[in-house]
């Protein structure tokens, strides 16, 4: 246990510690530079692009996953859907798929001559955009791919939540004449509030730190328009060898995530 704790504590402390050091460009090791890395970050426009993209990315992924996931979970929870068990198993496959493989599939789908554009051409959209090399669209393509990966977990968690709801309350509401929408907004949502909150928090943390998709689909391009902080930090550490600077970006991510993390821990402890 102690070993485990050490292995998980040490890199973390060391990472934060590193963020106060700068790497000499022409060798010569690192030197203490206080908050200089953070000051540099504040005037680094690429950092701000990454930060902005990270917020768009996280909000879009988590939001759409929750909305679409809820619709699909409600659908699969209908008692008269045939093959529900099979669907529930199959729908999880994207989640088990290697993320790099998923990124490559979507890179192919969004390709210039890929299936998506062929389809758009076929239904009458002449000149569909070249998704992966157009600023704006490239981040969108990555978001779609990430939603595809993240959706299954959301659906299955929501399904489990829906199935644990007390049925007598619903029968009572139905007798009282509450319609489908009313039952959803006044019963289902309030009853599942804490589950949804935990789900969204966890999902936000995972999505915020996601690396594989953007690295494999666009590598931040074109022209850094789909840059995310995880990728920018990676590039700094392992392409430009600015580990202190990279650590500083990591520390900022951690500070941003601190809020959801504390919330998650508090909720889990309350539940336990």
């Amino acid at each position, binding site marked *: 246990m102690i070993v485990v704790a050490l292995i998980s504590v040490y890199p973390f402390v060391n990472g934060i510690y590193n963020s106060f050091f700068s790497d000499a460009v022409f060798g010569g090791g690192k030197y203490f530079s206080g908050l200089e890395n953070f000051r540099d970050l504040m005037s680094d426009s690429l950092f701000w692009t990454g930060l902005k993209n990270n917020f768009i990315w996280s909000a879009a992924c988590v939001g759409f996953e929750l909305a679409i996931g809820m619709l699909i979970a409600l659908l699969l929870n209908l008692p008269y859907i045939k093959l529900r068990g099979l669907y529930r198993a199959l729908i999880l496959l994207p989640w*088990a*798929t290697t993320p790099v493989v998923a990124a490559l599939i979507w890179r192919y789908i969004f390709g210039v001559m890929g299936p998506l554009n062929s389809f758009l051409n076929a239904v009458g959209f002449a000149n569909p955009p070249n998704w992966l090399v157009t600023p704006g669209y490239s981040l969108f393509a990555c978001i779609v791919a990430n939603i595809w990966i993240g959706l299954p977990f959301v659906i299955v968690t929501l399904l489990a*939540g829906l199935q644990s709801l007390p049925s007598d309350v619903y029968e009572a509401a139905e007798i009282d004449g509450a319609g489908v929408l009313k039952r959803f907004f006044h019963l289902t949502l309030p009853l599942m509030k804490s589950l949804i909150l935990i789900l969204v928090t966890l999902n936000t943390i995972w999505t915020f730190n996601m690396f594989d998709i953007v690295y494999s689909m666009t590598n931040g391009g074109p022209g850094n328009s789909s840059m995310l902080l995880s990728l920018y930090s990676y590039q700094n550490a392992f392409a430009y060898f600015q580990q202190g600077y990279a650590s500083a970006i990591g520390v900022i991510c951690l500070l941003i995530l601190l809020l959801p993390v504390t919330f998650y821990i508090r909720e889990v402890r309350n539940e336990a």
Partner: protein
Amino acid sequence: MRPKRSVVITMNIVAFVVVLLILSPLLMLVLNSFRETMDIYQNPLKLPEKLYTGNYSKIFQDTSFRRNFANSMTVTLVTVLLCIVITTLAGYAMSRFKFKGKNPLILWLLASQAFPGILMIIGLFSLLNRYSLQNNPIGLIILYTTFTIPFCSWLLKGYFDEIPQALEEAAMIDGCTRFQAMRKIIVPMAVPGIVAVGTFAFLLSWNEFFFALVIMRENANYTLPVFLSRFVGTGGAVEWGALSAGALITALPPILLFLLSQKYLIGGLTRGAVK
């Protein structure tokens, strides 16, 4: 109140279409792996007319693919084994014993899930370097095992909590040591949890990309996700045929394992959130 027949039929069709849509990228991957690259480029929407297996023979002749496949297997299987042994013991300890610092420890285990990977890797990099574990499968195994431990011991703790203490107390009165009681009575009862933990560890270490990318610096030591990302290159025409075959072989083991053990895994993954 029974829903109308038309509603039932519509909803069933909608559900079928939704599932099909979600699976379509994977189906496309399967189809493409049996087509020639030219054909993939020219007719992206068409179904293949004949079964072309050249992609598979090509990818299997690639020595670095074979080596990297073996690397992935070794790293993953060792990680799964270590993870099961360690987290069974740790989960049991957390469930049965009171010890100082237990609560902070559990908290830390949960919190460590959220750390940005980049902060971890920069710290770990120098550590791995010092013990020459960088560019070494053992380094990757150690990392993956430590990643799985927090969540998996937490999950198994939950399983052990539900097994009544009286069972092992009875066994101990009958002359078992605590370890025997655990091995013969408790562990067999926690098999669903252990299967879930094993699957989770397998998925994590087989699919992991970021740390493998950073730590493995030589072709011969890559794992499959790194192999694929190198294979696709950074520009120019991509050889989708062979790539699809390689990607499918990469994605298949976790998918198959997942289908086999999904009953246990889903229960394990969602129980924490639902309870």
